[in-house]
């Protein structure tokens, strides 16, 4: 009688234990917490359920220029999240802009005069600060007011079970599209100058005089008479960039992947040479690749997202707050972890998110510039943490720059 009971006792525990994958589904919070805070006796490092260290980003790969019908395209894969971005350029005639003639007349002569001086070439941003400031205003006016950049992100590609295809864009897709748009505007990535299509009216054989006036206009305040002699060149049309991002596979952190694909696709974008054809009264383009030019982008902003995993989210609500008391640093007994580049599983377990977009001046040699900083959903990340996140994002910048430049 003793033998069967003895054999039954060791057989019982396996039937009650669960494989890790089921435990992860049933008790996701406890599962991640157990990974992040292993028992001190086990001597294991704190590691995330997906095997990464808290500050580690996923493996990223990028490839650009593989789509035929685009001016520029890129595929960026961050872990299991994949974003495909295609940039398509179309032409917006100034005739089609309702307020064009009015806004041009009111913008005054100063702009026109500067444009004359600008005929020789595009001055770089570093060369002339005051010039750059004035140009920024004009860039903003043209790119933002005329909607020259049209980013749209689509999640209804079957990328994850929750998104029904065919339905209007979900609120996540709408918010991501809008984040990309506002980041394109605030980072001033695309120069309006690249998107303008100019026309120089012929001056009926007075080229020499025109050249002369143009030199004069740079340093001397040219009188109205001089301006009448040389016909100023005018903007006839703009390029509009339709930037469409398809999230092919979604496994957390879509913004970083989407933004990286937008950046890589814009770096790949080539606009054909375009001119105003006076006979056809339309804009014509040359299909010669050697005449096409790439966009000259400002900077290289890279997004990195973080989320905060809290061991006991309710602790902060329960805590008795004594004003001005010396609050013991909770980090002594570590209760919260900041996880870089969260995957879908971690995103579902965290409330607080942070997203940083950083750039480095003078091609990575200069100091780090924060282009965008966003933090919401909690109060765990403090100033010190943010400082740390910025340096982590700066490291990520180096990594991403290498990946995107090689693609």
């Amino acid at each position, binding site marked *: 009688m003793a033998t069967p009971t003895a054999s039954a006792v060791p057989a019982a525990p396996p039937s009650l234990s669960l494989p890790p994958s089921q435990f992860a589904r049933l008790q996701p919070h406890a599962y991640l917490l157990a990974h992040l805070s292993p028992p001190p006796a086990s001597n294991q490092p704190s590691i995330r359920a997906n095997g990464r260290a808290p500050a580690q980003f996923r493996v990223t790969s990028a490839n650009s220029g593989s789509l035929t019908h685009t001016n520029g395209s890129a595929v960026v894969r961050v872990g299991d999240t994949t974003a495909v971005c295609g940039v398509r350029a179309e032409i917006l005639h100034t005739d089609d802009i309702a307020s064009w003639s009015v806004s041009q007349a009111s913008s005054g002569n100063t702009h026109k005069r500067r444009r004359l001086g600008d005929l020789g070439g595009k001055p770089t941003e570093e060369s002339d600060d005051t010039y750059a400031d004035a140009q920024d205003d004009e860039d903003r006016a043209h790119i933002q007011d005329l*909607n020259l950049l049209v980013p749209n992100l689509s999640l209804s590609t079957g990328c994850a079970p929750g998104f029904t295809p065919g339905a209007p864009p979900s609120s996540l897709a709408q918010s991501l599209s809008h984040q990309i748009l506002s980041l394109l505007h605030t980072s001033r990535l695309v120069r309006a100058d690249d998107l303008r299509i100019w026309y120089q009216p012929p001056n009926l054989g007075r080229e020499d005089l025109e050249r002369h006036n143009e030199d004069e206009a740079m340093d001397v305040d040219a009188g109205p008479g001089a301006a009448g002699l040389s016909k100023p060149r005018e903007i006839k049309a703009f390029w509009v960039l339709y930037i469409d991002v398809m999230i092919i596979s979604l496994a957390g952190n879509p913004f970083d992947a989407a933004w990286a694909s937008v950046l890589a696709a814009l770096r790949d974008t080539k606009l054909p040479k375009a001119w105003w054809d006076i006979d056809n009264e339309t804009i014509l383009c040359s299909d010669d690749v050697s005449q096409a030019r790439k966009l000259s982008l400002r900077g290289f902003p890279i997004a990195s997202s973080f989320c905060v995993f809290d061991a006991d989210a309710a602790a902060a609500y329960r805590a008795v707050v004594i004003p001005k008391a010396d609050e013991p640093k909770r980090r002594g007994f570590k209760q919260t972890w900041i996880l870089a580049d969260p995957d879908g599983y971690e995103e579902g377990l965290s409330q607080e998110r942070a997203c940083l977009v950083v750039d480095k001046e003078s091609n990575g040699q200069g100091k780090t510039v924060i282009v965008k900083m966003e933090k919401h959903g909690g109060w765990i990340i403090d100033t010190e943490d943010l400082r740390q996140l910025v340096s982590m994002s700066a490291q990520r910048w180096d990594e991403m720059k290498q990946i995107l430049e090689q693609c």
Partner: protein
Amino acid sequence: MNDRRRVNGPPGGTRPPVFQSGLQSSNPSDRPRRQRQPAELRKIFLKTGLIPSASGSAYLEFEPSASLAANRSNPKSMIPPSSALKLTCTVHGPKPLPRSAAYSPNLVLTTHVKYAPFAARRRKGHVRDSSERDLGVHLETALRGAIIAERWPKSGLDITITILEAEDDRWWGEPPDSHDASWGIMNVLAGCITAASAAIADARIDCLDLVAGGVAAITEDVGASHSGSGRLMLDTDPAEHASILSACVVAYMPARDEITELWLKGDSSKAVLDDGDSRQGHDALIDGAVDAARGSYSVLSEAVKESILNAVAHA
């Protein structure tokens, strides 16, 4: 009408760029030439399981034609000579039907085909148009015959296809007023069928057999002495042929020698096949399309085998 849930472009609308070379009557000799034998198919890249959040997924890509590959390695023109199909397919399910749905003893299949806005030569809208809906219906009929639907009562299966790059309907240099059927959609459908079948197998849905798509067309030689003399070509790239009389796409199950979907376009009745082929036009077309499907089946079965080996290795 303004779509308030998307970022809209300039309210006045924009125009696609007009190329100067496109205004002049284009030289017919610039048309890309078919470098393959009439019965030679393009290479297909097919891989399953690229999207982990879906129960099954597949990515399919056609080999670029010779002219496109040349333009890509040594770019000369901003106008691509032809294009190569690229699409992803995801399968979600089987999952319970919503409570509000009517009782169904079978698996309810939903297919959804959407072009990316940058997929074709002309920018596509964000909302599905009629041709995309049509493709979805054709795809559904092709797959419904293969899936053993009664094993999942009260369940639904969503198949979503995103076309990243579509086939051309005709050569870009064709005069804009030339009215020709949209032949490219047939190649797209064949690709959709093959990819969807791979994704369904990747999702471990019971099927009678794998379904492979194939395209054949009867083309007319421009310099032919008498009209109506056609040649049967498998896996035609519409950009490479001046005149396609008729084309056919089939969804074919090789193990059972069954066709689940047949779509024949154009007039094949008057076509007389040369090189001593006495078959009727449509017979030859269907046979050719089945041959093409057999070709893509060999790729499909390899991809599915790989998917199963991967699953076994991870289990």
